[in-house]
């Protein structure tokens, strides 16, 4: 099994924020959603995911709440806060600029 490519520093934060736009999710579900949406490419290890979640929570961009899942299990659900939404917009704009720049570099005829 090939290791999933390392994510850029900070990219995981962006992805988590983006995934949480639609609905609050628990940590495991966030991992699954990322995997699913990326077409099984982005597999985030728990060792990266949870520290990232805790950091984002500590920054005040997402907030955690204990709720029951559909199977009636207690789980911590994360949702986007208002400042998290702002942060997402900022980071998306930043990402757009960076990726466009990278594309320009890569597609340039040498």
């Amino acid at each position, binding site marked *: 099994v090939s290791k999933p490519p390392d994510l850029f520093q900070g990219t995981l934060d962006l992805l988590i924020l983006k995934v949480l736009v639609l609905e609050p999710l*628990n*940590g*495991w*579900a966030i991992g*699954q959603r990322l995997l699913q949406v990326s077409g099984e490419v982005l597999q985030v290890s*728990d*060792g990266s995911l*949870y*520290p*990232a*979640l*805790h*950091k984002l*929570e*500590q*920054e*005040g*961009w997402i*907030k955690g709440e*204990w709720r029951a899942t559909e199977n009636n*299990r*207690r*789980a*911590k659900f994360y949702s986007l*806060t*208002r*400042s998290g939404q*702002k942060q997402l917009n900022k980071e998306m704009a930043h990402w757009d600029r960076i990726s466009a720049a990278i594309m320009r570099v890569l597609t340039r005829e040498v």
Partner: protein
Amino acid sequence: VSRLERWLRVVSLHVRSLCMKNRVEQDLADELTFHFEQEAQRQRARGLSPEAARAVVRRQAYGLEAVKDACRDARGVRWIDDAVSDIRYAVRTFGRNPGFAISTVLMLATGIAASTGLFAVMDAVVLRPFPYVGADRLARVQLLPPSGPVRRASVTADEFRALRQASTLDDAYIRESFTKTLAGSAFPESVWTESYTGNALALLGVQPIIGRVFTEAEASIGPDPPRVAVLTYRFWQRRFAGQPNALGQTLQLNDEPFTVIGVVPAEYSLDLTDVMLPLPMNVGNGATWPAVVRLRTGTSIAVAEAELQTLFEQFARSRENALPRNFRVRLRLLVDEERGASLVPVLTMLFAAAGLLLLIGCANVMILLLARGRYRVHEIAVRHALGATRSRIVRLLLCEALLVTVAATVAAVIAARYLLPSLLDLVPGVIAQRAGRSVIGPTAIFFAASLAAVVAVISGAWPAVAVSRWGGDAIRGASAARGSSVGSVGSGVLIAAQVAIVAVLLAGTGAAMRALVDLYRAPIGYDPTRVTIAQIYLPTNRYTTWPARLAVYERLRAEVSHEPLVEGSSISLIPAGPPPLSGMTTRIDAQGLRDADREVLTLSVASDYFATLKMPLARGRVWSASDDARAEGVTVINETMARQLWPNEDSIGKRVRDRSFAERQNPPWVLNAPGRDGWFEVIGVVRDAPNRGMREPIAPAMYYPYATALSDVAVLLVRTRGNPLAAERELRTAVSRADASLPIILFITPETFMGWQQGEFVTAVLLGFGGVALLLASFGLFSVACYSIAHRTREFAIRLALGAPRSTVLRAALQSVAVAVSLGLGFGLALSVALNSVLARWSIRNMDDPSVLAATVGILVVVTVAATLIPARRATSIEPAIALRTE
């Protein structure tokens, strides 16, 4: 809003992470458990058997603790957690080893307390010498003539009004000091009053403790101000025992009643002021007063000087003769005057000495931390093995140093706070006047805290780094000996540094003692035993003619000299007094003198002055009592004057003229004898006596009969038969027989004006610092010797077992200490000699004096030997068999 919201959430999360740790941990565990269960479920759904799925999950979850740890880190409060546990650990460590904790805290506390106390004094004397609002913008106006001395610029009432309007100034005020006679107790008392213009107290921001201060509205320029008095705290305590009912009471000052309206705090008694009064300013009689101005914020001195130059030139046009020609206006900041005062170098030096003391304390703490670190190599190694990072261990060790420093600082601030006032009480007059305001307030506490931070870094960093490295070395199997050798080199350097600092401190102390001994030994030109002097102020508005004034002085002399307790007595007019007090500087003409315009000191004294003080005459004679009464034109000069004016001739019979008789318009309080023109015939030469303080060279001086020009302030000089201070009551009674309303300023003995007190104070402080420094350094030396010998017990035991003589072992044991001490001593001596030339600018000399340096070396050698004796005995008394078995 969203930012505030976010901030609040972040803060509450931090608080939660810190304070509800169990809850947070539980949440984290629950969250991850849920994750792994979900994951197992998913694996099952993908068709793995439940066992296989759990195995996969277990494999993944192998790092569960690591994930938890990473999450804890991500929460960003980890360092606080760690710090709390470090502090707890450090406290426990100290609890197990209270001797170590107490000694390190004491070592640092001594230095911090000394530095903080002196900082408070420096703050009061040098940094913020005045308690006034905008004190750093207050300036005296001076006039500089093209040649000759600087003059104070005095203004008339009208000019003062114009000055206050100047656009570069906030405002101006006038302060004049007078001693006034306060009647109403057993003996009349002389009080020091300061008269201010009505606007001054509000301008300076003087706030009363009780009652109120006078205002511009009630004490305006022109009409006589109301007779109200504002007391200073010290006078309020002295006269009214601090009773609030002082308000409304009446003070009889110079026979005028003043109503007490308020009391101001102690800090406003800068010049021993007792009472503040409104200044009467009559318009139109031409009287002038020296003004103090306050510059507008942001105005440069040059700009203000330019405006005042124009203003004073206008004043000069409307006045005749009163101002010098072609003067230049100069503004002299009050704080600059104060900072130029002679006290500053002394205080700076003591402050530096306190800093050195603190450095020694730091070095000691480093030595102890290093020494203790050697015994902790195992512990550190175990911590490494359990996964603690190097930086984590350094932090733990730093935390210990920090804890010591914080404890020491708290102890030091408390000690300084409670000791400073009583220590200031011991400080002699001239320093106490200025330093009396020093308190351990917010500034001093802030200083102590900053000092503590520096101290913690200095004394903690190196040991922490070194000890953590030894631990790392130990776990990698490097020889423990390497660690210890690094440590002993380190301790050696510290010992050397300590010894060097102590040497400098001791040399400084020795120099101060030498200077003091020189001062004691310096010839004072008279016999001061059982001599006491008192100042006498004639009441204003009385004795206003020359014959009346002479009569009261003569009556006074007679009454005092008839007192049975009195062996001899005389009188002189201020500023003259017994040596080394100065006289008045005057220019003279002299017969047969080529270059005119010489300056000499003149001293107005009575005929029995020389006999009372036992000042030997070199040639000629002294005038008689009847010459006193006739104000005969005769003078006795000192040897310096005789030598300077007539080097090759006999000075007896020569004539000199005090030009001030011709030049000065005498101030109203000086009454010249009728018909005197200032010419005197030299009839005697008296042996030289210091006349400009004990430290300055002797100036040429002439003494003439006091009746020649009678001022209203005199000094009574008395040699008693017994203890002079015990005779005070009899002397006061004798004075009151001459005139019951004559106030006397307390009787003092010559020691108080010899300049000895300052020398004694400085020496005492330095002696204290030097002693403590010596104690600290010997303690450091002792512990280094102890540790190094204890550490090498095994080596010594083997050597002894192999037949080495005990003296060889002893030498090996003390060699490194001896090397360190000699290096430090050499460096310290070199530093003292080098410092001597720097300090000489502040007339602090003798630090390179061979006897001082020899004494320093002697003391340090004795102390070194004493401090290493016990450990040395231990090294030689090792029983090889026992020592080798216990290792």
